């Protein structure tokens, strides 16, 4: 997947724990982990909105497009 999720980077910058963010945005820690590890198929606008609100950031800070290199 060429889309990279940078939630952990923002979490580290905000010195916030994964558990606290999960509780604040109303998703399980397992689902947050799925999102972080890039296993998620899609992200709801409502989830993105909640993450941005609680981490005080922009969607672009969380989502990054990194083209896959073909060998």
């Amino acid at each position, binding site marked *: 997947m060429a889309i990279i999720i940078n939630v952990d980077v923002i979490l580290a910058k905000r010195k916030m724990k994964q558990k606290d963010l999960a509780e604040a945005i109303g*998703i399980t820690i397992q689902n*947050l982990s*799925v999102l972080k590890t890039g296993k*998620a*198929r*899609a*992200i709801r606008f409502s989830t993105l909105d909640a993450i941005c609100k609680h981490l005080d950031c922009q969607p672009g800070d969380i989502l990054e497009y990194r083209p896959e290199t073909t060998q």
Partner: protein
Amino acid sequence: MEKLKITSTRLQIVVFILIVLMPCVAALNAAIGAWAELLNIPQGITLDANRIFGLGLLAVLALGLIKPVAYVIAFWFLYQLLGLYREGIIFTAENVAAIRRIGWAVASIDIADMLQTLITGPILTFYEISSGYIAARLEIGYLIIGLFIVLIAYVMDMGRELKEQDSLVI
């Protein structure tokens, strides 16, 4: 979920009884010499029971077991599916595969029936158990039901995949 487990357990008992009953009925028919009933012989065809011995007897028994075996296989797959329900396994790939197997097994009952009807005449004629005859019958009731079950299993599988995908939407 508890209700499903209780119902599945009860149905499993019923299906198990049917699994045991099917060969018993065939054996009973053979024991009392109800060959026409066992072989599903068309009306008007008479069998010479005195000629049913040795290889002829084996052939008659094998022919008579074709349909009961098809039923037993279908019931066995149903028994397995109910076992999965009893364990609380629903909407899984294993479950869908079990339903698909039931579908094919049910469809094969009619195929077994048609095959039995088709080959019984020549085999009985060969062993001189009946006067020469050949019969064919078109049975599609179970075939349609079976294929419909296979279709339902396919749709269920699609639903399961969608559910799996949905669980990865955060």
